[in-house]
């Protein structure tokens, strides 16, 4: 519990623009999209438990917004937190890269770019990973595949 308090304190100091909440499994920290790099850097350099291992980086399309979800683990204490950022814009979705902090993000971001069409600023190699350049962004909810038309009905 003490650790949790410390962490709350740290977040309040280092990431004042973020909102910390306790999710079902892990603490969740939501920050504005423009501040993501700053928040990520603060978390990575947190002395008590540096979150130096990026477990997973992905995006979720909620139609009204696209949420970036980062799962971070500290290899020291093995605590996991979820970092989130909401992107309001759909057509010109942009967010700062975190690939300079965790190199593995470089490839996860390329995957997200490929499947969601989110552009990562300052990314060293912003090319599509799996698909051709003129393919749509298949993991968006409004994606329509003109070639393989399979209508799903939920």
């Amino acid at each position, binding site marked *: 519990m003490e650790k949790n308090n410390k962490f709350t304190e740290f977040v309040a100091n280092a990431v004042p623009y973020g909102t910390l909440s306790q999710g079902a499994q892990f603490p969740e920290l939501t920050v504005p999209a423009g501040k993501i790099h700053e928040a990520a850097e603060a978390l990575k350099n947190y002395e008590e438990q540096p979150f*130096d291992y990026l*477990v997973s980086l992905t995006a979720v399309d909620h139609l009204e917004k696209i949420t970036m979800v980062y*799962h971070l683990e500290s290899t020291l204490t*093995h605590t996991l937190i979820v970092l989130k950022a909401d992107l309001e814009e759909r057509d010109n979705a942009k967010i700062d890269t975190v690939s300079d902090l965790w190199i593995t993000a470089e490839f996860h971001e390329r995957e997200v770019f490929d499947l969601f069409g989110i552009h990562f600023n300052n990314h060293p*190699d912003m090319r599509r990973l*799996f*698909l051709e350049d003129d393919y749509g962004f298949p993991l968006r909810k409004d994606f329509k595949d003109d070639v393989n038309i399979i209508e799903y009905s939920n």
Partner: protein
Amino acid sequence: MSEETIKKIILKEDEDYIINMGPQHPSTHGVLRLEVCLNGERVKYMIPHIGYIHRGMEKMAEFNTYKQVIHLTDRMDYLSAHINNEAVCLAVENALEVEVPERVKYIRAILDELSRIASHNLWWSAFGMDLGALTTFFYGMRDREKVLAIFEESFGSRLLHSFNTPGGLMHDVHPNFRKHTMEFVKYFRKKLPDYKNLLTDNVIFHNRTKGIGVMDKETAINYGVTGPSGRGSGFSCDIRKVAPYGIYEKVVFREILYREGDSFARYKVRMDEMEESLNILEQLVSDMPEEGGFTAKMKPVIKLPEGEYFQRVEAARGEFAVFIVSKGEKYPYRIKFRSPNFSNLFVLSKLAVGGIIADLVATCGSLDLVIPDIDR
């Protein structure tokens, strides 16, 4: 990789000697293409190209029920299919707060460890082949066959058994399951010294792997290299220890860690892990309750309450995680598979630089990549 190199690669500015290893190459173990730029035989840079068998599983999963999604996870890392299944099952069970019977937990863990042995065994066979020791393949396959026979007896299929289901197992295991597993443990303990004699103690093998593809701990963490490959660099990332699931809290076992970070360390981690799995199996099989059913009571249609669920398991090649976003429907709204090989692959382009082609093959083999897991 610096921006300059990337520009060079895309624009083909200078006349580099580039060879394409793959998509059909004996040492890439699947449809992976490595664009290797050579200076003589030395690698200047290496770019992996993936996506040849991308099946859009995450999109497919959005139109499948949770029980159907399990069958998709089989097809990712087909060598640790059972462990992948378990991740989805655990996520769903946690979300619904279902308590599965104790016996199911035991059986799942036994199957996990058997899968791990089978997977490492296949890797050992193929790794020997990569280095030109062709006989390892048949020794490894011979012993892997015994594991597959156990699987076949209980589930009717050998590789992709989809035996897990949310709440428990599809059906009960074969009455001989416990006996045959015990027999296998005894059998395999006798065979492991053969492996040591054939490959581990070979001088040429030492020369080919020691000091090759050295990855330090920081690199491993930074690239997110997990599993035996990460543990070969001293990165303690065994999910069975870090975030225990199922029965693993009760099992006494050791997390194998080596600090050298070269191909040989990664090799040793896997060899030791096979032995450790045998220890775990011994404990589990003797403690496994005979009675207790094979599944918890589940509704026929599974609907997850609204929310986000994240479940990590230790697959044979590293951390496999599943991230489910549910909107309260019977289909997942969004599902993300964090596959270990995806992260493990990209460190290869760092490790390969400066070595020669033969080192690239050795490093690639020691990372133990399964391509469908990368492409998903």
